[in-house]
């Protein structure tokens, strides 16, 4: 196709969080095309069908539906006119394209409204010029421009060609709709790919087919970072159905993300390649971390806790002195395990290397860094790496790391054919970037009225010297910092060979458990109602440091906490039967304010039945897609409960023991309680929903278990043996 005239809108994050627009108008003559590219995000066909590109990867957070909703609203088209396509990876054109950190809403809501409004303004200008009337006399509705005075109207399809020749208006100057008039934003719009999902059409990375491709498995060292000394690849190659087998030399350094050493096996069917692995005979150099273990870490953490922390994160007032003088002191040691992401679609990637260039089909949450990693792995320029984003069968942060892309690319290059690499479940569970384990040694002091006067935590985490392992950090703003006069957060660090990384609501998914459980212990110790005790700590509404510079608004947190007490009938919890109880917790993460109550019944055998969950969230002024929002929030709360009840990764001899869903147990439908979701709308910019509902549900459950049984859960996953009568 000859170079057609394109109007590119560039929206990118500038320093200080402002957004800039650059419109690029290549001067080449325009070729007649059936659908006019109005902007980089929007094409309009003569029949009025509007194609909107969704720029970010879809992991199940509903982004492929939500971002186009925002554009369509301001463009003022009917949702039924809209078709959605996945944008290619082109961060120069679309801005950052990734799925993580519940960032899509705060980063894109305002800019994409402006993209839509700019398109609408161009169409109005085109209509006004056609009719030779002032643009101010024109209005739009559902993809049509009207001039009411003269009773004329023109559909967007008829105007597209003319509009696309106009300059793109300055985004900061476009007029946005009054949210009261929204027709799409705020409506429960269903996932655009649902019809394909329920009929089993090809959508996911694992469904990719490239002509002539072979299926590959890749055996890595069970100890992270281990290297191949030798392997019986010649014998493997001779086995029936096997096309090729070879050692891949890795480049893995301390970053733990680049290509690992391993052995690739290629066959016409993945099952054949995978089956042959049991015949592999590999001698590994397991490297320096082959003696590490979960048990060893726990012992080391206890030993470290006996001494002063290696460093202080924060010291307010005089915590040791205040603890000495306190009327009541509570001491507790909390810990949580490594966790795997257990995406249901195992890691996979299809790669075709030819003539020095590579094309990939990758279920990645983070395609930009994936492109860079592949370029570095193969030693080719980034411009020679093409990344196609497929739908993703679950991310939860795992697919922010692109190790599978480097593997597929390297294997395709070495084999000289297109290759679909697919990990089996054991690969996936044993070669993750785990939610780091952690250990907290806490002390809290109450005065004689049961008010919190002092709190200290010695946090034992992982890292090397002052550099912490990925996602192993605790912020100095961690609650209840700045709300207790005497507070000390100290930290000590253990060395780790296990790769770590973000898991849905990173850090918060662990720290909420620790601090919201310990706060509960203190409330009970002081004879205070756990809701009232928390409200007292939050105090008068104020904005404290936190939230990545956007602040932690204690008033918003008190608001959701009061609301959850109301909807869960907290005040009447005393009337519940024996061994049935409610627990409460709140947490602020990813700019979202969530308070949750869990009701549980614990049998005499220690079995935990989840009776009901109440969730109240405050994510600002607008829920963009209420259907997707409810699904995300219910999913996040249940995800947290599943992790607390049945998930933990054990390290022995430097390697992961668990390999499948029998020992790392996802939540199943017979365990699922009703999850009631309420949103408080407040006058703040909308923020994301993929993560913040998860953290508080775990302590809410553990606090309910305490209320039901008198047993305090201080380690995860929950050991039901502790709860037997």
């Amino acid at each position: 196709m000859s170079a057609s005239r394109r109007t590119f809108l560039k929206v990118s994050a500038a320093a200080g969080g402002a957004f800039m627009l650059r419109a690029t108008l290549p001067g080449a003559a325009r070729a007649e095309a059936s659908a006019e590219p109005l902007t980089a995000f929007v094409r309009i066909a003569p029949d009025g069908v509007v194609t909107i590109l969704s720029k970010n990867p879809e992991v199940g957070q509903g982004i492929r539906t939500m971002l186009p909703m925002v554009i369509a609203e301001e463009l003022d088209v009917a949702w039924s006119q809209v078709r959605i396509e996945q944008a290619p990876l082109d961060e120069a054109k679309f801005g950052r394209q990734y799925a993580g950190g519940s960032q899509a809403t705060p980063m894109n809501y305002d800019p994409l409204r402006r993209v839509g409004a700019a398109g609408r303004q161009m169409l109005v200008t085109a209509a006004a010029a056609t009719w030779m009337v002032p643009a101010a006399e024109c209005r739009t509705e559902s993809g049509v421009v009207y001039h009411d005075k003269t009773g004329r109207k023109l559909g967007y399809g008829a105007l597209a060609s003319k509009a696309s020749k106009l300059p793109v208006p300055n985004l900061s100057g476009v007029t946005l709709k009054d949210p009261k008039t929204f027709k799409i934003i705020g409506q429960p719009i269903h996932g655009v790919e649902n019809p394909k999902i329920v009929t089993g059409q090809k959508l996911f990375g694992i469904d990719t087919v490239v002509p002539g491709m072979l299926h590959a498995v890749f055996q890595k060292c069970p100890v992270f970072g281990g290297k191949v000394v030798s392997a019986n690849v010649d014998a493997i190659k001779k086995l029936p159905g096997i096309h090729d087998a070879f050692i891949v030399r890795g480049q893995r350094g301390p970053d733990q993300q680049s290509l690992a050493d391993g052995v690739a096996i290629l066959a016409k069917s993945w099952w054949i390649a995978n089956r042959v692995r049991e015949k592999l005979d590999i001698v590994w150099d397991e490297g320096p971390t082959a003696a590490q273990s979960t048990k060893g870490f726990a012992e080391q953490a206890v030993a470290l806790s006996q001494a002063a922390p290696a460093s202080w994160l924060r010291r307010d007032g005089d915590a040791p002195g205040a603890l000495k003088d306190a009327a009541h002191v509570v001491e507790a040691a909390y810990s949580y395990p490594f966790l795997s992401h257990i995406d249901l679609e195992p890691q996979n990637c299809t790669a075709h290397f030819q003539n020095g260039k590579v094309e990939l089909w990758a279920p990645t949450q983070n395609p930009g860094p994936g492109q860079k990693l592949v370029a570095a792995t193969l030693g080719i320029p980034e411009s020679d790496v093409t990344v196609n984003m497929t739908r993703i069968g679950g991310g939860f942060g795992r697919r922010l790391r692109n190790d599978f892309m480097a593997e597929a690319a390297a294997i395709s290059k070495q084999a000289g054919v297109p290759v679909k690499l697919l990990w089996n479940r054991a690969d996936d569970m044993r070669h993750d970037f785990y939610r780091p384990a952690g250990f907290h040694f806490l002390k809290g002091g109450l005065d004689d009225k049961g008010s919190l006067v002092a709190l200290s935590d010695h946090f034992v985490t992982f890292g090397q010297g002052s550099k912490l392992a990925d996602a192993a950090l605790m912020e100095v703003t961690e609650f209840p910092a700045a709300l207790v006069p005497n507070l000390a957060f100290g930290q000590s660090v253990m060395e780790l060979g296990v790769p770590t990384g973000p898991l849905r609501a990173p850090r918060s998914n662990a720290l909420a458990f620790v601090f919201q459980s310990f706060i509960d212990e203190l409330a009970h110790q002081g004879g205070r109602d756990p809701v009232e005790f928390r409200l007292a700590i939050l105090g008068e509404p104020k904005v404290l440091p936190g939230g990545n510079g956007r602040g932690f608004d204690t008033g918003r947190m008190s608001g959701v906490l009061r609301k959850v007490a109301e909807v869960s009938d907290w005040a009447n919890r005393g009337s519940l039967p024996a061994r049935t109880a409610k627990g409460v917790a709140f947490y602020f993460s990813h700019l979202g304010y969530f308070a949750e109550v869990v009701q549980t019944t614990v049998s005499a055998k220690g079995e935990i039945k989840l009776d009901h969950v109440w969730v109240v969230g405050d994510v600002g002024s607008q829920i963009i897609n209420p259907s997707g929002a409810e699904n995300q929030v219910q999913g996040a709360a249940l995800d947290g409960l599943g992790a607390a009840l049945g998930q933990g990764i054990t390290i022995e001899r430097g390697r992961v023991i668990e390999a499948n869903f029998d020992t790392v147990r996802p939540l199943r439908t017979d365990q699922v309680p009703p999850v009631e979701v309420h949103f408080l709308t407040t006058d703040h910019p909308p923020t994301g929903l993929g993560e913040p509902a998860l953290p508080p549900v775990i302590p809410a459950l553990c606090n309910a278990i305490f209320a039901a049984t008198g047993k305090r859960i201080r380690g995860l996953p929950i050991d039901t043996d502790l709860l037997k009568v």
Partner: protein
Amino acid sequence: MAYTIKINGVNRTVEVDGDMPLLWVLRDELDMKGSKFGCGAGLCGACTVHVDGVAVRGCQTPISSVGNAAVSTIEGMAADPVGRRLQEAWLALDVPQCGYCQAGQIMSATALLRQTPHPNDADIDAAMTGNVCRCCSYTRIRAAIKMAAGAGAKS
């Protein structure tokens, strides 16, 4: 060796080892990608298909065991009255999150409704507990099964 099996009413012949699981015959030999691989061990249900109307795990079903039985997959559910009602309920309630488990969920639900047209919660637990939804869309899955069962009652 050559196996001829009937899938969604059509005879298909493949040349594979007898112990190749039906899941991989479908996905890699016949390019039917609707049935999904999740665990390979009968623990997640992503690979659920029907053999003579019974929900089985495709990853645990060697092709040699299929014989003359009728195999149906998610690709055939639009032509199945019960399967179709379930698909419609799934759409009406906007069930999927990532969507990866949903083909298996619909296959298990279809087998359930054929056996038990008006399942109670315990019936749903028994039929659906083998199907993992990592995104935890369970609340809507249950509601969609009930909706489809209700729709069946009316028609």
